[in-house]
């Protein structure tokens, strides 16, 4: 089912606080990442400039395609964001443990593919389980 935009006449404060908390948390994560990468390369200034440029580009693209984005089902957005966060999180956590990934940074793509395949496999199993429970077969 597609999400239907609600009336914008009044602010939903509950939704506002949830969205604010989400943006704050993600912003904090980005700050951690930028400072970590910048400090490691001794280039905090350049890392900050890169982060601001990324913010402008991503924000601009999101603004341009906001109509299309608002039609994507929320569950699929969560699914995609979860996949990306899990992939990047695992990649960096392993690097933090001094792992050398086969293929270097390109391993991110392989990791994303593995996580996507796993997620879709679990999704299929859950659907099958739900169907079995419903029909009693």
């Amino acid at each position: 089912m597609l999400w239907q935009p609600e009336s914008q006449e009044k602010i939903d404060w509950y939704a506002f606080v949830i969205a604010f908390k989400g943006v704050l948390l993600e912003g904090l994560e980005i700050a951690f990442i930028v400072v970590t990468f910048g400090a490691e390369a001794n280039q905090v200034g350049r890392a900050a400039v890169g982060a601001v440029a990324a913010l402008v580009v991503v924000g601009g693209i999101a603004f341009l395609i906001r109509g299309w984005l608002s039609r994507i089902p929320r569950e699929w957005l969560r699914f995609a964001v979860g996949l990306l966060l899990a992939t990047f999180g695992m990649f960096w956590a392993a690097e933090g443990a001094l792992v050398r990934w086969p293929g270097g940074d390109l391993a991110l793509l392989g990791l994303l593919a593995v996580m996507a395949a796993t997620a879709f496999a679990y999704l299929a199993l859950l659907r099958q389980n739900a169907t079995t429970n419903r029909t009693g077969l």
Partner: protein
Amino acid sequence: MRYITAFLTFWYHFIVGDDWTIAASIAVAIAVTFWLVQSKIQAWWLLPAVAILTLGVILWRAARAE
């Protein structure tokens, strides 16, 4: 005191999240990965394997609870 509790709760939810067993599994996996790397053993596969297994277990638990 209320503010301190709220502050600590925020960080608990930020770092640990809804299920502490997932956070614990990943923390142990990172520690074992580090230990394997220090022992000159390839360990890049360990974290994805633990994540996939942990995800399967929590989904199975959630599906059974319903």
